[in-house]
């Protein structure tokens, strides 16, 4: 069953049509990718799903509920969480606190109960802290919980952002270029990690990615956007042989072309 379904979504900025009449679906527990040249409207589509931008037209259903009119915090409550293309952590807060903010919506302490320090609040805080520590371990940041987020190395920040998103217990996780700026080794472990998210935590994952190695290596479905429109959709194999896709990439002489290699060069997925 499709967990997220977008129907004829359009988003315009003035005269610029960033997303045009886009139909999109993702099955539960799937890993799907959206690719496309720079400015194809991928991040705008993410923003529409998460409520950061209001779509001008169309409908977005999450688990059957229309969400296009909701605020970002309401959408987050429904179980969609995301990361950002340019990492947006709470820099002056510690890594642990970043994750705790992620858990905000699943906690219930009122301010007066917190001030009174009721047993219920203390238990909730303790559990949240344990959960946060677990998540830190899960993203290989164990023992670095008291570092300020801005002091973490780049890869650590990327992973912390994912841990923060996981803190809200999402059923759908949107990753905006999770491997941007990573070296091949880091990329490899990020791919492995994304697979673990799906296999161990049973989370549906939708990612925007530029590195074809990653896209072809882990996605079960690929959607290609160009100028805000869907030009192709299918399995990795179908996409690699699609002429419009090749045209969209090669026709423009995109610098990313070099990475768009056949799947043969992708190492076989190791069991997660």
């Amino acid at each position: 069953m499709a967990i997220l379904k977008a129907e004829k979504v359009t988003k315009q900025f003035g005269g610029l049509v960033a997303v045009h009449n886009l139909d999109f679906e993702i099955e539960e527990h799937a890993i799907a990718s959206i690719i496309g040249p720079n400015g194809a409207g991928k991040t705008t589509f993410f923003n529409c799903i998460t409520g950061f931008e209001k779509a001008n037209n169309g409908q977005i259903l999450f688990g059957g509920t229309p969400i296009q009119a909701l605020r970002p915090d309401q959408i987050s409550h429904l179980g969609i969480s995301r990361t950002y293309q340019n990492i947006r952590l709470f820099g002056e807060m510690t890594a642990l606190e970043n994750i705790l903010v992620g858990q905000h919506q699943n906690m219930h302490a009122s301010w007066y109960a917190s001030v009174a320090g009721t047993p219920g609040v203390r238990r909730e805080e303790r559990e949240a802290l344990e959960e946060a520590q677990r998540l830190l371990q899960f993203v290989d940041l164990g023992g670095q919980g008291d570092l300020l987020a801005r002091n973490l190395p780049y890869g650590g920040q990327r992973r912390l952002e994912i841990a923060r998103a996981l803190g809200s217990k999402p059923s759908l996780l949107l990753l905006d270029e999770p491997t941007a700026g990573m070296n091949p080794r880091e990329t490899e472990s990020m791919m492995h990690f994304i697979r673990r998210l799906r296999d161990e935590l049973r989370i549906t994952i939708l990612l925007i990615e530029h590195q074809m190695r990653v896209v072809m290596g882990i996605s079960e479905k690929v959607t290609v956007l160009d100028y805000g429109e869907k030009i192709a959709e299918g399995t990795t194999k179908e996409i690699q042989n699609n002429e419009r896709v090749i045209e969209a990439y090669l026709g423009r002489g995109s610098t990313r072309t070099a990475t768009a290699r056949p799947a043969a060069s992708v190492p076989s997925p190791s069991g997660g």
Partner: protein
Amino acid sequence: MHTSATERITDWAVWAFLWGFRILVLLIVVVGTIQSLRSGQYTSDQWIDFVVFGIARGSIYAVLALGYTMVYGILRMINFAHGDVFMAGAFAGYFVANGFSRTGFLERQPVVALLIAVLFAMLVSTTIAVVLERIAYRPLRAAPRLVPLISALGASFFIEYSFRGFFGPGVYAYPAVAPLAGEFNILGIGVLKMQALVVVAAVIMMAILYTIVMRTKIGKAMRAVSENKDVARLMGIDVDRTIVATFAIGAAMAGAGGVLFGLMFHQVNFLSGFVPGIKAFAAAVLGGIGNVVGAMVGGMVLGVFESVGPALFLGGVGIIRPYQLQDAIAYIMLVLVLLFRPSGILGERLSTKKA
């Protein structure tokens, strides 16, 4: 289902408050105007005097507002100390004018004397603003937005109380300039010569500034930097120099405005700049911040409302001694604009996310 009860209540309360506020202000304006015009408490000549005085005061706000608008346009920062730079100009002008008045030069050559006073005031204000930019603002350019604002707040106090130290807490009385006393007729309306001078001088200054911004090389650089600092730098524009120039030009205007203020109100004190500064900022917001013409319009509108408002709106709804609440009119206008039309009268839509 996803909106909890408290959430709905807060949403509703925000909505109710905003509308209630709108309706209240509208009621005061409409009822007040009708009542006070009906009562005939003021003659039409008095109303005209209010308006003319408002325009004169508004033109000083406008001159000051230009400085706020230009700096905000470039740095997205409220230069809180701008009002105090204005006060410094008023002081500088005072000492020159007073000196000339003692030697009798002011009597003999009022035009030359005042011109020298204005130029000296501009020089002092510009110096202070440039030093300020170098010390208090430049090191903070990359800092989060609140940081330069607080620094500017500090700078404002620093300048005010330095001047209190230099010259004491007393009020200094500007010398009277004989040729500026009395009034003359324009289209049957009696206008004080002083007020006419202030308006004319302000309009000339604004015209010069407009030309600088739109026509000259440095003006183009300013507009480029305000659009995008990084791109401007790539295009070979010296961003630091452009910013300094912006501060300097704004401060020069403020310094001249300070002298006009002194001539019009005959007094200056170390706190003279604070309230006009805030009102000028309100004027800049009113006209649409970052917009040079908007600052002029905003200044005039604010000046007139402030001058007419207490008698027309507040007096009309039965508030006694409405002049005590004169300043409140400027603040309410400011809040109204920020709430309902943050882009101002002429402004383009401000992207608040441009933090």
